[in-house]
């Protein structure tokens, strides 16, 4: 099975996390840890770049749900960007587009954050 890796990039006005490979029950804790540490640092504006993500399982989706309320309470948000059709289909089935902003480009997501503040 393909490995999973993530890259954290602290930019203005938000932190970009780029995901790569397979995000499932085994690899989800890594993303969870990363987001948790962002919250500890007080960074609540997060863009998730899904460009290189091949697969996301329900456990992977659960990571976003686990944090979204807390992040939104603190005035931040998680925005998803550059999802492939296949990954988008999974988000779509679950109704993520109704709860999260899913944008086609990372820049757009960053722009949204700038507009917000």
């Amino acid at each position, binding site marked *: *099975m*393909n490995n999973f890796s993530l890259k954290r990039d602290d930019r203005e006005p938000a932190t970009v996390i780029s995901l790569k490979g397979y995000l*499932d*029950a085994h690899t989800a804790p890594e993303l*969870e840890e990363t987001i948790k540490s962002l919250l500890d640092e007080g960074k609540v504006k997060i863009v998730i770049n899904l460009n290189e993500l091949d*697969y996301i*399982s*329900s*456990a992977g*989706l*659960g*990571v976003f*749900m*686990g*944090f979204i*309320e807390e992040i939104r309470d603190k005035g931040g948000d998680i925005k998803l960007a550059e999802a492939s059709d*296949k990954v988008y289909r*999974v988000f779509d*089935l*679950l*109704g*993520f587009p*109704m*709860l999260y902003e899913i944008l086609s480009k990372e820049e757009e997501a960053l722009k949204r954050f700038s507009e917000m503040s």
Partner: protein
Amino acid sequence: MNLKIDKKSKLWFYIPVIIVIFVASALLIKSFPVEISVTEMLFGQISIVLIYLLSFNRVWLLRMNLFHRFVLFGFTLFVLYTLIDRTLYSVTYESTKFSDVSRVYIPALVLIMIISWFVFILIKSLVFMQQSKTTLRNFRILLFLIIARVIAVLADGSDFVNNVDLQNNFFNTSPINIALGMFEPESFFIFLIVSLIIMNSFRVKWIHYLNKRDKILSLFAFFIFTVLSARIVYNSQSVFNMSNITGVFLHSAALFSLIYSLMSFTGILFLLPSAGILDKRIREVKSFQQLSSTVSSIFEPDALCEKAVELAAQISGSNVVWIELKQGDDFRITASKGLNADRINLLSKECRKIHDRLQHNKSLIINDCRRERLTKDFVKKWFKECSLIAVKLVYKDKYIGHVFGLKYIRYGYTDEIRALFEAFAYQISMALENADLVKLTIEQQIYREELRVAHEAQMRLLPGSKPDNKTADIDGFCMTANEIGGDLYDFICVNDDRIDILVGDVSGKGASSAFYMAELKGVLLALSRYVDSPTEIMVQANNFVRQSLEKNMFATMVYCIFIPSKKVLHFARAGHPPVMLIRNGKVEPVDSSGLGLGMADEDDFSKFLSVNKIKLRKNDAVVIYTDGITEARDRHGNEFGEERLVELLAKCSDFNTEQIIETIKKEISDFSKGTHRHDDATAVVMKIL
């Protein structure tokens, strides 16, 4: 030894030998200075052959331990000595003429022959311990020479002639005399025999196997044997007076016994100072053996350490020994010996200073702890003087703990003990690792058993039978990925004209999702009794999931209410893959909007949730599945996907429910063959009859 020859060849070997002895014994008996009748002769011959045969069956002798052999040896020499010194000697002093020797002494002479032979056999059993190639050869040459000497005396025909010259030759066996008389036949024989006896007497390997105590005992024993043998050699002249042959035999045997005893005595004497070392070695080997057998029998780490500490103290002679094993960043003392637990605890804490020094070395010895910077403080508090050894426990590059040893003397640990301790430490590490593995295996077995039970429980949560209905044939299946998973499906016959069908998937895998699945099923079962709209049921289920499940968990679900009389299927979809409708050979995904259960609060959830209605016709089929089917992967990591499912279902247009289920199951199994399926695959099929 020669008893191992198989029966046939043994017989062929013995027959000529017996004939030779038979003839030889006739000559021997004839040589006695009295008239002997034919009966006496025959009787004598048969006795000698029997004695010979018996003396060859010496298994009983080989089975005796060394100590018993010594006792027997001593006893034999004593009998021989008494016989000669006390019985014959007095006779020959009174009359040196053999014509005076009465028949009465003949049995004594025969007895002397037999006992002399027995002395040979006894010494042979010692000589042949740990025999080498030349042992047997040398011994045979010696026997041959003695027999040759006997024959020479016989051939001389001068038996029972009190040959003073002959005697003088025997008792003046000083080196010079021997050297001078070397070319005289008699002296030459003696010279050869003595040389051979000396050669054979070097075979005293059994001494090495005696422990210190036995060595001291043997030293005394062989001293006595030497003295006895010397007496017999000296007194054998009285036998010569009566029979030269017996004399020669006795003389050779006694000489052999004398030289061999002397050699053994010297050997033991020289080895006595190092006797303790051998004992120690044997103790060490025993401890090691014990440890090895302990290793294979004890799988409880603490018990294993207890035993190891005991044995380590024994082999190294340490006053205090303890084993500490790594536990996280700390160390736990698993076993100790020599001091009480509190003391050991304090010691172990003080000894942490040494750990750094062990980083690059396997072990460390501090010869004088009072002078060593790291240890002097605590040692001065508690001990007069001491030396210390510390060995790291390492197994396959994994650092698992230490063994410490303490002796209340300075310079208590030699490099030898260090090597021993290191080997010992390796054994312990290995044993501990084995114990760990065994524990893990047992745990895994228990875990597997628990999983099996959980799996059975989960399977019991799924409907056991199809709903009884004439309009539609409904059935489903669930192929679990791990032993327990989060998929569920159920049929609820609410009343005669309403069958609820639900297919769901609780996120995540394993035990927790299975528990929530069971809980959700209960909730839905209760809701179905008094709520008749799929959306309302979904909203209630969403509330439940939000309250009960962890934040990062959710469930997807399709909830259908089928009205058989109208052939209408109402359904709501919460984040679940669409429902597939197979109609006239075509497959159509029927969608409706809805968020996954637990993803949003009631307001948002109901806002996005819609209900869909399908009016079914005869031969229509509906397939509701979980993402485990479309996300099944082949060996190359390709997903089964929705398109493939649509294609597959298109072929199932004319199939009945059972056939459709079998087709899907087979296709998914074939597709994911050789891989580990990572998600449950569940589907419910409904065919309108």
